[in-house]
């Protein structure tokens, strides 16, 4: 890379930063030096600690331990304004503009200089960058790309020396990405240091000078981009002792022949907001894992099928019946259930007891005018036993159960409707290992009983463990499909980041 001819002056130096939230250690001793003009691509899965690190640099969080130096001087970044004063500026993933203000007001707010001077500087800056941006437009009329430009202008006008770009391309079109890359290169040549957080490995090689990979609160790999290959980056993202292939199913090459069975769920050329042109079949008694990074469109796909979002085009067929664009209650009645990603937000009735929670989905059908408490109790009893839900009794308030047991109740509720297909969205997020095992057992039992399962998970090991088939979603598209033999962490990770390359087919050769 030609622009690495910089003067090597260290701009920001992070030394041994630790951060925990309660019991949960998020950063476990992070050190990183960034020189003037460096573009550091920061990569990592969900929960690796990228955002926490950036929030510490931005003064939103305080580290538990460790130091940060800027140009060799120790700084105390105890609030955002302190970070701003040090010339650090964060361009968040979702631009944080004031929708009711004009572009100019948005950029100039928070400055202490005179408006007229600032205005001139701003106009000059825009000319310099060669952008075409009307200053009197209201922010809510801007496209995402334009909003990002406004954010970057904010940072530049503050004469920021360190820019943090958090997944800047996640909501941009191809042309917009190209001009963003030009801008980043330009800024870097002007000596501005850039943290570039991304989920797209290809971008690393297009734009970054350095790369740092985070996993579990540590850097697993860092250095000049030119020293690495894509494969090495993917290795860095994986757990150290990960088995490269899985072999939980006896004969890994045994193909399940679906040609004679009719799929429970057929999704045809299905498009909605956040995903497009999805084709997918799920067969009875099958677990289909759906991997991908956050924001890939998996949850939107699920909620749209479930009747919670608008369908753009395409078709969803459940057991031969067209359920495209049906309302949620109708989808439920047809035999499809969805267990949401965030049980705290959508999943549970926190202050009701276990019985009410478990039976809440069947209340419509099991009771007439008055509640059929007896039936509710029977159903709940069964699930408490089957799922080993640890509770003092049916009347325990759900909010007082542990996360894992709450999740079991939520799954029980979904099953009480006797669905033909269940979509589980991140079923084990935030629950402990023991409960996780129980949930896996439940999922496998379900499968045995002939229920089809679509398992959305960012935990790749979970997909490897459970799935009969796996698909990966990347930027709203189903990019790859793997049969049992090819489901392994390497493949899934590569495909989730959009860089999977057809490998030697193991089974055909045999």
């Amino acid at each position: 890379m030609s622009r690495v001819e910089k003067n090597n002056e260290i701009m920001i130096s992070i030394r041994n930063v630790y951060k925990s939230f309660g019991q949960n250690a998020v950063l476990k001793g992070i050190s990183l030096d960034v020189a003037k003009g460096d573009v550091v691509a920061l990569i990592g899965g969900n929960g690796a600690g990228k955002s926490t690190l950036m929030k510490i640099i931005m003064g939103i969080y305080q580290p538990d331990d460790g130091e940060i130096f800027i140009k060799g001087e120790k700084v105390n970044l105890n609030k955002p304004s302190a970070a701003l004063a040090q010339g650090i500026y964060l361009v968040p993933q979702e631009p944080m503009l004031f929708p009711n203000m004009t572009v100019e007001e948005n950029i100039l707010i928070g400055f202490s200089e005179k408006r007229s001077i600032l205005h001139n500087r701003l106009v000059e800056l825009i000319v310099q960058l060669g952008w075409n941006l009307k200053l009197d437009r209201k922010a809510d009329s801007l496209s995402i790309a334009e909003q990002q430009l406004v954010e970057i202008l904010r940072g530049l006008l503050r004469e920021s020396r360190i820019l943090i770009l958090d997944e800047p391309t996640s909501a941009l079109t191809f042309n917009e990405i190209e001009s963003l890359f030009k801008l980043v290169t330009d800024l870097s040549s002007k000596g501005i240091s850039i943290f570039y957080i991304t989920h797209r490995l290809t971008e690393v090689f297009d734009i970054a000078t350095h790369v740092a990979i985070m996993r579990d609160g540590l850097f697993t790999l860092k250095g000049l981009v030119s020293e690495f290959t894509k494969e090495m980056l993917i290795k860095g993202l994986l757990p150290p002792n990960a088995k490269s292939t899985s072999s939980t199913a006896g004969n890994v090459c045994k193909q399940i022949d679906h040609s004679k069975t009719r799929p429970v769920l057929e999704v045809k050329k299905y498009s909605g907001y956040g995903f497009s042109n999805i084709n997918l079949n799920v067969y009875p008694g099958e677990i289909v894992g759906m991997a991908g990074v956050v924001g890939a469109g998996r949850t939107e796909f699920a909620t749209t099928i479930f009747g919670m979002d608008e369908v753009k085009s395409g078709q969803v067929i459940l057991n031969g019946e067209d359920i495209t664009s049906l309302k949620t209650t109708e989808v439920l009645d047809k035999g499809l259930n969805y267990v949401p990603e965030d049980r705290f937000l959508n999943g549970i009735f926190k202050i009701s007891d276990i019985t009410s929670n478990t039976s809440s989905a069947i209340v419509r059908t099991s009771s007439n005018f008055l509640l059929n408490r007896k039936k509710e109790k029977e159903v709940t009893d069964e699930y408490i036993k089957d799922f080993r839900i640890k509770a003092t009794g049916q009347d325990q308030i759900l909010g007082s159960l542990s996360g894992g047991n709450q999740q079991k109740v939520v799954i029980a509720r979904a099953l009480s409707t006797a669905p033909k297909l269940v979509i589980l969205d991140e079923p084990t997020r935030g629950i402990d290992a023991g409960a996780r095992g129980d949930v896996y057992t439940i999922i496998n039992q379900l499968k045995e009983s002939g229920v089809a399962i679509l398992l959305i998970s960012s935990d790749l090991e979970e997909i490897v463990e459970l799935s009969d088939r796996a698909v990966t979603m990347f930027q709203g598209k189903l990019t790859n499909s793997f049969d049992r033999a090819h489901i392994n962490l390497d493949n899934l990770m590569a495909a989730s980041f959009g860089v999977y390359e057809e490998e030697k087919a193991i089974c055909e050769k045999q």
Partner: protein
Amino acid sequence: MRKTIKKLTKIRELSSLSFLVLLFVIVGLVNSDFFKIKNLLLTFDGSVMYILLAVGISFVIVTSDVDVSIGSTLGLTAAFIATCVRDDVSLWIAIPATLLIGAVIGFINGIGVAKLKIPSIIMTLGTMGITRGLIYIYTDGKWVENLPDFFKEYSQANIFGFINLFLLVTLILVVLIFLYLSKAKKGRYFAAVGDNIGGATLIGIPVVKTQILAFVLSGVFAALAGIIFVSRVGFVSPTAGSGYEMTAIAACVLGGISLSGGVGSVIGATIGAIIMSSISRILVFLKFSSDLDKTITGILLITIVVADSLLHRRAKEKARKARLSARSTSEEVKQ
């Protein structure tokens, strides 16, 4: 579509103003007595108290909170200054002390909302009850009356022979605040906090301070309104000012201030307050019973808020869809 919305939002105050003018013209056509200069002036005079309340609460509403304690604050400060005037305490002490009471109540609200993160409706509902209770304790549940005439005469004082002293001072105050909020460096902080609190934090705006200041200003303006209440009405009952918060909130909404925060100006609040305070007068001129006053206020309030929140929701949904679409289509072009 985008352009029309943009234009509409730009002239929020203008549409309130045309509503006011239209209202007056219609009433004037039905009953020409309404157009007599004297009546119009009386209508405006009567709105001073509401203008102050609406301007004060507009700071809070623009930061996307609400303050329902202002009616009680008005009552308590009115009772306090009334006793001061009755007992011959110097106005140089009494007025600052009254304003201080308003500021303290506002400060408590501000701490509760900004620091302790209590939802503003709950926090101010609490202080509303406490403050109302304090009035009863302070006055023993009795009216404060027999005030000296000099104080009541302030509300009759005219400048240039026709314009009421309080009205003039209030209008000047409104214009000054308007200029400060729209032109000064820190003037836009209130709107910024209400518009996008996360964004405000990120660019270093002191969010907590701004929120507290909004409540303090709301309290101080309620106290100012309390002083004017005493001068105009001449006595204070323990229920003085109750229900005024609804009128003030309705005035703000009517004046184009969005309850979702970030949008609106004190000019709008002023126009809204004039409309609100003239409704009962207008009803009389239209030969309707003024008992309808509250009902009409309520209907106006709900209509405008519903329209506002529908627009807001649609814009938000549109933005979300645009964002999701961009995510999934970018790949299409690439391949």
